[in-house]
């Protein structure tokens, strides 16, 4: 039985359809990322799961119980807000104790002991008597996290959990979240617009676009086999190349606008005609060997990024961006030959 089941949920704000018959099933213990650009409906979905927004239609089950019309306080969930939403008039320990106090389990002392335990999990038990404003941003987030796990919720919801942290703290927190998830096994759903967060944390990534699921799957799957232009573009900003596809059986090739032909893999997905393909920037190499697809081009500009270099290469009228190790990069503007393994050209569905 699934821990969360979202069945054809619809949400409209006026004429704007934010969620369009949305379905989602989450198994117990899963770590799910809702990924998408702003306005794709991911935060609305999270708020509907939490009970803070009422859907216009559809059903919601948490841990086998229908919660569609239920107020947030009657769903056994926890939501960590992007702003943390720590209560400023309560100390850290009182903040963490709050869910226990509201749900009324045990006396004051047991509750405090439990809260202290949760704080120890995020290594903040020594700051229990401070007020939130006396803590740093990273510490505040840990308090918010402790407060979210203390009552052992059926569902842990995280709204952009890393967006308010600077780059270094973000890495620490990723480790922390993963570790907590592994040790507590809480079913966790988090919302993010950052593909690297989604790929780095989740067991399963739900890529959302305009109130629908664009693609769902494991991080590896969704990164290496995007199905649509949107998915390819959103996950890592790949080259999108349009080719004229010809062939049959196992041998197919694509033709660039200037007439250059390249061999294609993924034969079973192909049909003749114009088709868009994704080519990851990292898949492009200089001085290709004979097993690769090769094209003639010219280096237009380059940005040195340290370990890697980004090159803009013109192939006819098409621009291809290559991200290569700096020690394997030709430098300077000149005509050159680039290539990639045929299976790196991944056919996409339009729209």
């Amino acid at each position, binding site marked *: 039985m699934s821990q969360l089941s979202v069945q054809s949920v619809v949400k409209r704000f006026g004429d704007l359809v934010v969620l369009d018959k949305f379905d989602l099933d989450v198994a117990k213990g899963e770590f799910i990322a809702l990924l998408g650009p702003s306005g794709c409906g991911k935060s609305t979905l999270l*708020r509907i799961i939490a*009970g*803070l*927004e*009422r859907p216009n239609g559809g059903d919601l089950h948490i841990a086998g119980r229908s919660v569609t019309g239920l*107020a*947030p306080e009657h769903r056994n969930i926890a939501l960590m807000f992007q702003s943390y939403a720590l209560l400023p008039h309560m100390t850290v320990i009182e903040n963490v104790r709050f869910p226990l106090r509201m749900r009324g389990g045990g006396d004051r002392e047991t509750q405090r002991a439990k809260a202290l335990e949760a704080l120890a999990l995020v290594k903040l038990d020594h700051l229990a008597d401070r007020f939130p404003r006396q803590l740093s941003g990273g510490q505040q987030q840990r308090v918010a996290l402790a407060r979210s796990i203390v009552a052992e919720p059926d569902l842990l919801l995280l709204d952009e959990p890393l967006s308010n942290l600077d780059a270094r703290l973000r890495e620490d927190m990723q480790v922390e979240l993963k570790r907590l998830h592994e040790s507590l096994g809480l079913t966790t759903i988090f919302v993010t617009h950052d593909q690297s967060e989604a790929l780095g944390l989740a067991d399963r990534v739900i890529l959302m676009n305009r109130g629908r699921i664009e693609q769902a799957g494991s991080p590896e799957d969704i990164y290496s086999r995007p199905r649509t232009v949107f998915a390819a573009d959103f996950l890592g900003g790949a080259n999108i190349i349009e080719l004229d596809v010809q062939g049959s059986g196992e041998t197919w090739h694509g033709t660039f606008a200037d007439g250059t032909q390249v061999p294609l893999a993924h034969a079973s997905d192909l049909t003749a005609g114009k088709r868009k393909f994704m080519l990851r920037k990292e898949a492009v190499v200089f001085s290709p060997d004979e097993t690769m697809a090769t094209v003639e081009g010219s280096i237009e500009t380059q940005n040195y990024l340290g370990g890697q270099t980004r090159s803009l290469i013109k192939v006819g009228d098409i621009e291809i961006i290559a991200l290569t190790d700096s020690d394997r990069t030709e430098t300077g503007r000149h005509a050159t030959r680039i290539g990639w393994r045929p299976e790196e050209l991944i056919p996409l569905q339009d729209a």
Partner: protein
Amino acid sequence: MIGATPRWVLGATAFFLVAVGLFMLVPLLVVIASSLSSSEFLVFPPPGLSLRWYGEILGSDAYLNAGWTSLKLALGTVVLALALGTPAAIALTRFRFAGRAAIASVFLSPLILPSLIFAIGLLIVFSRYAAGPSFLGLVIGHTVITMPYVIRTVSANLADIDPNLDEAARVMGARWWQRYLLVILPQCRTGMAAGAFFAFNISFDDAVIALFMRAPGVETLPMRIYSTLEFSPDPSVAAVSTVMIAMTMLLVVLLNRVFGLSRIA
């Protein structure tokens, strides 16, 4: 967070809002209704409708004179309050100097002294050091109580504006008078307008200072209304009051246009 509000709470809230709305507005509505009465007396419900009381006040020298006095008083107050308050607001928001916070609270202190007490002090001073209360005394009294509003609106206005504009003007070679005329004062426009509306409204409506500073031959509209209410209210008072309510509504609309009501609240 309507999504998580129980339905019966929404119902109770609607009831509460209607009740409070009635409580706040009915005192104004009954005044308007009374002004349309055809009766000589203030009875409810009015026996019939008529506009005769508006004709009555237009033909009454007492009301017309009082209206004229109130208008002169309010306009004089606006001019004086803007002239004294605007520079002070500029100094308090645009400069950092020792004692700034203390001086700011000195400027706002008339807000916290009940106008009743201030009125008595003013009455004592004018009786002892001048020939007694006068129209000028009223203008001065009203300027004191309205200047803080000008200072607050102009300060709020200036706080929203890029503090570097002034310096940019200097760098571009503007002399001090050019900075004030071309850069600083144009930026204060909305604040000054809002301050002027407040000052006009407060001066035009005040009865407390006016009643204490009663001078021979000087009667404002609120004074006239007060004394009529004390002795013999009739629907003509309601007609004058309705005209004043209409003016207040106009001011509220203007204030919303210029300044935004949500900034007052």
